């Protein structure tokens, strides 16, 4: 497929989209943009707009967050109902209690119950609580996940191996520039009495997005 050349940005695009045309999952250009990034970095260093230490520091901050940070919050909520309630009331504040600073936006925690299952998407971009969980998985940033999850969530969940009974309500949360979501999954039996270290490995990234539930 021929790839069009770049057009300069305009104030906004007047492109209309055909609501019946499927999304196109393009993944071209990795080698080209790797080279562009290398070239841009060299130029920024030469112009002294950046130093090597500047990008090294941000790379370290990008690499540090991971699923266990989110799992730590969930484990705490499973053990302490008062904490779970504070978490649902103000996610950013409750995360900060455990030392996790959500830098990019307000953290909203949505709680699963026996009759409600939450799932997270970002249809417009790929907003994700990166400062807590790290980079999103490939499928989360894919156009097929972004497009379909709000239209046919049960079908999407089934593709991830999660079949929910019809009586369980499925609620889809569409992230935006000012909000990041985290799912609080339902606990395994006896979670309140188990140590945090034992609970953390039970929480997967899929559970925190809502594409899986705790086994058993």
């Amino acid at each position, binding site marked *: 497929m021929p790839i069009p050349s770049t057009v300069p940005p305009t104030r906004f695009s007047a492109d209309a989209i055909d609501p019946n045309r499927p999304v196109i999952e393009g993944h071209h250009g990795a080698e080209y943009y790797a080279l562009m990034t290398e070239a841009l970095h060299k130029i920024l260093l030469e*112009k002294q707009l950046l130093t090597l230490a500047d*990008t090294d520091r941000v790379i370290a901050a990008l690499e540090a967050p991971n699923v266990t940070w989110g799992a730590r919050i969930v484990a705490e909520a499973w053990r302490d109902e008062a904490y779970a309630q504070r978490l649902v009331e103000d996610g950013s504040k409750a995360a900060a209690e455990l030392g996790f600073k959500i830098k990019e936006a307000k953290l909203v925690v949505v709680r699963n119950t026996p009759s409600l299952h939450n799932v997270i998407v970002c*249809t417009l971009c790929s907003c994700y609580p990166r400062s807590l969980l790290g980079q999103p998985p490939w499928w989360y940033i894919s156009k097929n996940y972004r497009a379909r999850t709000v239209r046919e969530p049960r079908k999407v969940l089934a593709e991830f191996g999660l079949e929910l009974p019809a009586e369980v309500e499925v609620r889809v949360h569409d992230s935006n520039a000012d909000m990041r979501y985290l799912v609080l999954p339902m606990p395994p039996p006896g979670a309140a009495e188990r140590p945090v270290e034992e609970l953390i490995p039970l929480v997967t990234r899929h559970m925190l997005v809502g594409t899986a539930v705790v086994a058993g």
Partner: protein
Amino acid sequence: MGEPPFRGYHDIGGLPGGPIQQDEHPFADWQKLSEAIRGALEQKDRCVSLDEIRRAFESFGEPLYETLGFYERRAEALTLLLDEKGLVDRAEVLARMDALAAGRGQRVDHAAKTVMEAK
């Protein structure tokens, strides 16, 4: 009012789509560096913001939005934005890409967004 609501090409929620590819891809070094350049410029001089990056890839045209991957779109937007702000000339970036490629026995096709072995 009276006009239908504006919908940009990035506003894909609810559109039909195919199966979701569930394979994992590592966070590549160049992707980290690209994100770090933006983050560092934002933290240091506040000269680019994520909102501006979004505005750039939400207006650089539907054909590019469809063909490029997620980090590739953001990298394209970053260069466009720095050029627009007069901080880095886009032509200088493209020329540097050519020079880097030439040093490795490669050449760049800027229209096709590919790098290949030089004959």
